[in-house]
């Protein structure tokens, strides 16, 4: 599914949504709503990136929040020390450096072993932050130098980056990379013997994933104000990402983007209105979605006997 394969039935509602979101600030929305919408967009982008690079390839990276948090730290560290333009540029190679650690298991492990190994990465960030407080700010984290103070400007930046990420993913969906990732998911050994340089594909997808996550985290850290180890907490972010990608076509980017936005909204609602049931609702919803997929035999959910 690439740009050419997207039906008008899918493209038109998406275009309508994005146009509507562009004019929302003109309706006099509060700073809170603009902040919330910014986070919705950015989380949607993070989920669609995860969906494309990991769900599509079958490599269930349970350490995704390590990449998210280390990107946030990269941005905060460079902004603390460098002029703005240079800092933004430098953040990308710095976050690549961090994420090399999570690339290695991808090259050596497969299946459940890969997932188990990656789950540990987010939990290494807190001890590292404590051991090197002059770099990571210790338990407090690093205050992110504000680049934009107006919630409206931050919102438009978030919208622009989310549209950019989504557009890039749509383009990638029509490329051979997307096909190769799907082939790796189906049968990696066969893909290798078919002439697909599996290692090269993995490295390329990992690099692209990290760069896109770093781009998303630029406005994200502006909104949150602080880069801290709490961003690495895999629960329930991971479960939300898995839920969002399962809502319709896993690996499709579009639906996971919208799903991610919806789930973040739901999370925000539950934190305010029913915090004591948040985990129960989230996990039940996840089980319901996947059970419905299996029972109704929705595309992409095959239980191979």
């Amino acid at each position, binding site marked *: 599914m690439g740009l050419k394969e997207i039906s008008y039935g899918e493209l038109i509602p998406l275009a309508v949504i994005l146009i509507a979101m562009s004019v929302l600030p003109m309706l006099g929305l509060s700073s809170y709503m603009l902040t919330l919408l910014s986070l919705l967009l950015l989380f949607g982008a993070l989920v669609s990136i995860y969906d494309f690079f990991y*769900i599509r390839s*079958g490599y*269930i990276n*349970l350490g995704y929040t390590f990449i998210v948090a280390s990107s946030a730290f990269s941005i905060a560290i460079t902004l603390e020390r460098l002029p703005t333009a240079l800092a933004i540029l430098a953040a990308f190679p710095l976050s690549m450096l961090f994420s090399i*650690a999570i690339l*290695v*298991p991808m090259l*050596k*492990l*497969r*299946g*459940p*072993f890969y*997932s*188990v*190994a990656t*789950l*540990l*990465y987010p*939990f*290494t960030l807190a*001890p*590292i932050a404590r*051991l090197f407080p002059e770099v990571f700010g210790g338990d407090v984290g690093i205050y992110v130098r504000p680049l934009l103070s107006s919630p409206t400007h931050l919102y438009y930046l978030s919208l622009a980056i989310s549209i950019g990420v989504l557009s890039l993913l749509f383009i990638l969906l029509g490329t051979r990379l997307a096909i190769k990732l799907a082939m790796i998911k189906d*049968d*990696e*050994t066969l893909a290798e013997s078919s002439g697909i340089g599996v290692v090269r594909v993995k490295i390329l997808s990992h690099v692209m994933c990290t760069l896109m996550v770093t781009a998303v985290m630029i406005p994200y850290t502006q909104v949150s104000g602080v880069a801290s180890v709490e961003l690495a907490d895999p*629960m*329930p972010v*991971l*479960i939300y990402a*898995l839920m969002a990608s*399962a809502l319709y076509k*896993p690996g499709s980017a579009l639906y996971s983007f919208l799903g991610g936005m919806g789930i973040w909204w739901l999370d925000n609602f539950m934190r305010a209105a029913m915090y*004591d*049931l*948040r*985990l*129960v*609702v*989230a*996990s*039940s919803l*996840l*089980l319901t979605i*996947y059970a419905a997929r*299996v029972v109704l035999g929705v595309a992409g*959910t*095959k*239980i*191979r*006997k």
Partner: protein
Amino acid sequence: MLMAIGFNLVLGVSRIVNLAYGAQIILTSYIASTLLNFIPAVVALPISVLLSLVIGAILWLVLWIFRKDLILSIVVSIAVALLIEGVLLKIYGARLISLVIAPGDIMGISAQWIIAAISSIASLLAFYLMMSRTMIGKRMAAVAENEDLARYMGINVRVTSMLSFIIASLFASIASIAITPLYAIYPHVGWYYLTIVLAVVIVGGLGSAMGALASSMILSFTQSLAAYYIGSPAKDLIPLTILISVLLLRPEGIFGRGVRWA
């Protein structure tokens, strides 16, 4: 050690990543803490273990259905773990609870430590004998090695998998009852136990029960020796360095058997 072996058993034999394992561990403790209010420990503890095995068997049934789809099995196990945590939070709240099973000392050593040590050693011994001397153990090893070949040889893979799950749940229950009185628990602590298990499993070898045994020794002794002989902060870097080194250099673990499950 016990928990890591249980986790590795399920991963190796059934190819199931049970991320609800941490939640299973603390569930036993919560059940025991409730029952201990009404019945004596000698009755409450076996009932807690039994209930945990029943929950383990149900969990196996669910995960077995999804095991061929990695995404589904991981998602379901995470969802179950969060569901357990959420329910425990709702019922018991966020407060720490402590389990008192064996207060007092025996010859200057905490009775609880003695129980923990005896139950762990007995379980490990039983596990070793089972794996090396019984047909069940041999079948598990065969399935872990090559599931398809084991099936062709007439081994009932489904039953073998279920047994591995039940044994893992049993280990989780025993570990829970042994160590909870020493730790105190709260609903979120299951993830902490899971990370310890994962650290031991990754260093020792994914899918390798003996690797889990060795790595838990390595990590414990290294830490203790470093605490005495090496000054801080260098000593605090050692366990983290071992873990990160293994993840980078040999992510299948020291005793792991290379890339698995293509």
